[in-house]
């Protein structure tokens, strides 16, 4: 197992390098002179030339990539000109907030989605199945940002159950209860779509598995229906559900960008959107590379979980 994890980690290196190249190339496609973009249209030619030298932008592209990569490996993502602080500091702080939001939503959607899918499949065409199918359809069709806005209107403005926005109260203590108070609505709004997708997939994976020969064997042994569903079928269905959880984690992270905007959550999505609108290239570049790298690591965890579940995967 240890060797498998190591192998998996090593195989992530080319992917990480690929990510850095893709990000670098996309950023290099920015039309015009990056220094002008950074300094704005009031920059004098001397300023621009100086900044170009500082950034090493007068070097050829390949060389610039390696300089950037070298800095990257040492944890130096450059400085944000707008915020006037190191990119890494800003990214770490913002990512922390996103992690809380997206992590909560991910746990919610995994459990709710799988449970809903299994129940739906076990009661195929029954009332529970129809209700869940309808709820799922609604969930995957509603834009999460619209859902978030409606939740604010209903639960924050009208019912006053939760605060309208933000991560912490403006006055008062920053304890776990305050966080939960602020987290509930955005996390739910963020989880809805992924719950729908996971529920759908779990349902069809379960239906697929329930038709397999080994389920008939289990029935022929006299296994109770409960054991058939939860022990035999779900276990086998997990083999196709787990990779989807990995993909959905990416979707939850992505959806967080909208939800952060709606709920003014001080996460990395907010930061990226603002940075793009201000053309703060280094901040965008650093943020994207950092989050993508974290996602790659997360997918390694998913693969390891899969290999623990499925003995047919060679470890």
């Amino acid at each position, binding site marked *: 197992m240890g060797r498998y994890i190591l192998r998996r980690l090593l195989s992530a290196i*080319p*992917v990480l390098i*690929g*990510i850095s190249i*893709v*990000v670098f190339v*996309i*950023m290099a*496609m*920015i039309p015009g002179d990056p220094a002008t973009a950074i300094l704005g249209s009031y920059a004098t030619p001397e300023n621009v030339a100086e900044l170009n030298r500082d950034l090493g932008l007068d070097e050829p592209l390949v060389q610039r990539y390696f300089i950037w990569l070298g800095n990257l490996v040492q944890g130096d993502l450059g400085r944000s000109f707008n915020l006037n602080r190191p990119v890494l500091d800003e990214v770490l702080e913002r990512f922390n907030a996103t992690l809380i939001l997206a992590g909560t939503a991910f746990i919610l959607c995994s459990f709710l989605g799988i449970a809903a899918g299994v129940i739906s499949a076990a009661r*195929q*065409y029954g009332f529970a199945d129809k209700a869940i199918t309808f709820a799922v*359809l*609604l969930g995957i*069709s*509603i*834009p999460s*940002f*619209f859902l978030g*806005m*409606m939740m*604010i*209107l209903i639960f924050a403005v009208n019912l006053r159950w939760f605060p*309208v926005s933000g991560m912490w109260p403006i006055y008062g203590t920053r304890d776990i209860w305050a966080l939960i108070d602020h987290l509930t609505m955005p996390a739910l709004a963020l989880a809805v779509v992924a719950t729908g997708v996971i529920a759908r997939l779990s349902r069809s994976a379960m*239906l697929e598995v*329930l*038709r*397999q*020969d*080994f*389920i*008939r*064997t*289990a*029935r*022929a*042994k*006299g296994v*109770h*229906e409960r*054991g058939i569903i939860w022990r035999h079928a779900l276990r*086998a269905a997990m083999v196709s559900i787990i990779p989807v959880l990995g993909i959905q*984690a*990416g*979707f939850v992270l*992505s*959806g967080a*960008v*909208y939800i952060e*905007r*709606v709920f003014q959550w001080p996460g990395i999505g907010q930061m*990226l*959107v603002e940075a*793009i609108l201000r053309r703060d290239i280094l901040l*965008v*570049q650093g943020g*994207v590379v950092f989050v*993508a790298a974290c996602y790659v690591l997360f997918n390694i965890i998913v693969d390891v979980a899969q290999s623990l579940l*499925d*003995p047919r995967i060679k470890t």
Partner: protein
Amino acid sequence: MAFLKLLARNQLALAGLIVMGLVVLLAVLTPILPLANPDVTNTPARFTPPFSEGALLGTDHLGRDLLSRLMWGTRLSLAVGFAAAFIAATIGAAIGIISGYYGGRTDNIIMRFVDVLMAFPYILLALAIVAALGPGLMNALIAVAAVNIPFFARNIRGITVGIAHKEFVDAARLAGLSDTKIILTEILPNVLPVIVIAMSTTVGWMILETAGLSFLGLGSQPPQADLGSMLGEARSALITNPHTSLVPGVMILIIVMAINLLGDGVRDALDPRLKSGALSRPLPATLVDRDRQPGDTADGTALLELSQLETQFHIGPRIYRAVGGVDLQIQPGECLGLIGESGSGKSVTALSIMGLVASPPGKITGGSVYYRGEELVGAPYELLRSLRGRKVAYIFQDPLATLHPLYTVGDQLIEAVRVHRRVPKHEARAHAIELLKSVRIPNAEDRVDNYPHEMSGGMRQRVGIAMALANDPDVIIADEPTTALDVTVQAQILTLLDDLRRDRGVAILFITHDFGVVAQLCDRVAVMYAGRIVEQGTTDDILAHPAHPYTRRLMACVPELGGGRRRLEAIPGLPPVVDKLPAGCAFADRCDKVRAACRQGNITLDEIGATRRVRCIAPEIEELPA
């Protein structure tokens, strides 16, 4: 045509289609409708509530007419969403097909690149592209399409690999087709439905995504509005004037929901597996719907008795009479062979006994099954379950598919014991090892912790047998347990079964299509044709003097080892399809002794001699030779 019919039969999809049709129609007509200019601001009239004079849906924060903006915005959002889906599907599918068809290094390189793109949470990539190209609707479209290309590419590649290894592609190569021709005429037509499915299920998603980018202010730029940017602009007035948010938000919801319904409908209509309703979940026990109880009850001496058993499959308007009135008795300790060609109903008969026929679509529609005089058809589920595996056990054909792939064989054996008896786990494990030894698996102590995929086919089938023996059943129903095995392994398994049944006195219902196997293993044989028993008797008798014309000719068809080079007897024609059974004898169309009487009424299974029964009005022998 069939596709549209299927789609229309699905009411939800139809509803989606109608809503979508209306929305598209309105979007197309928008330029010629008498609407206010969507971009003309009129600040004094800002935030007019809906249903007011001159502004049906009210106005926004700049006093622009919301209805007009909604219509124009819908038009734009739809166009962008469809365009993105189409671009992503076309490019993604092309990459996927090339990668999957050529395989090898091409595939490797393309897929590594796709892996890298998929390693991004997709929005990061979209954001990076927008950051590079600058905010704007066109750029948002490019970003959303580009981000989705890897998803299509990977999906289509998977399908293509499956198809490229099909034999018809090899056949096309041998017929002299070039690679390009093969891709265009052999692969593409088979991949196209998948592309359409993938596209129809992602259009809604694309519309959401482009709306999302606009919502963030990275898509369409003012004054031009799509649904997302309308929502984005309305956000600041959410609390004071919620209608400005509701209007575009509900519109997105309606569009995406309609598209999703339609997409699901398209998928169901194009996916052939769903056509037959095959994706339904089989119930714990076969449904019973008997309009007729059999007259005669159990005779008492038989261990297992099937009386006039009828099982059907109801698929759409068709009714397949897979088992049409089967009578069988199995005495304690005997081995009864059930022989017949594919589709004759052997497996369905066997599965009906313990209610294991998949239902839906299967249904037991008549007759009875008695275990020691106790009726099993229609019995409460709990009774059936407690007998399954404890008194009546099964062995199935393909041992790889019939064992759970994710549990060790030990766990599966232990479970077989513990569902019926409360024994501590270590005792059950010791018993499992005993069982493995009894089926002559070497190193049983180690093998017990193996997973099925770590064993050979013969070994797995031994595990299957061990599992059937776990609770010392009275009867084992073995459905072609050696058909999937090689001859040398088959010989081992058959010997094992024969020894076990003699040692333990367990009765066996042995299903096969091989006369050689029947001859070596079974005491009595029943021959099945088109869902009915046509002949029954002791093995030696039947092999020496077949009485039914079908039995005789079937035996003649089978080449026997040691017969030398020769021309084989064949039976012309095909067995009848069981949803269109003829009146009278089902074999009449292929029989060389057919006469008018054969095609009328019900031909009964008559006794000739003490042990022999034949369903024929002109049997080959009238009386058994003494």
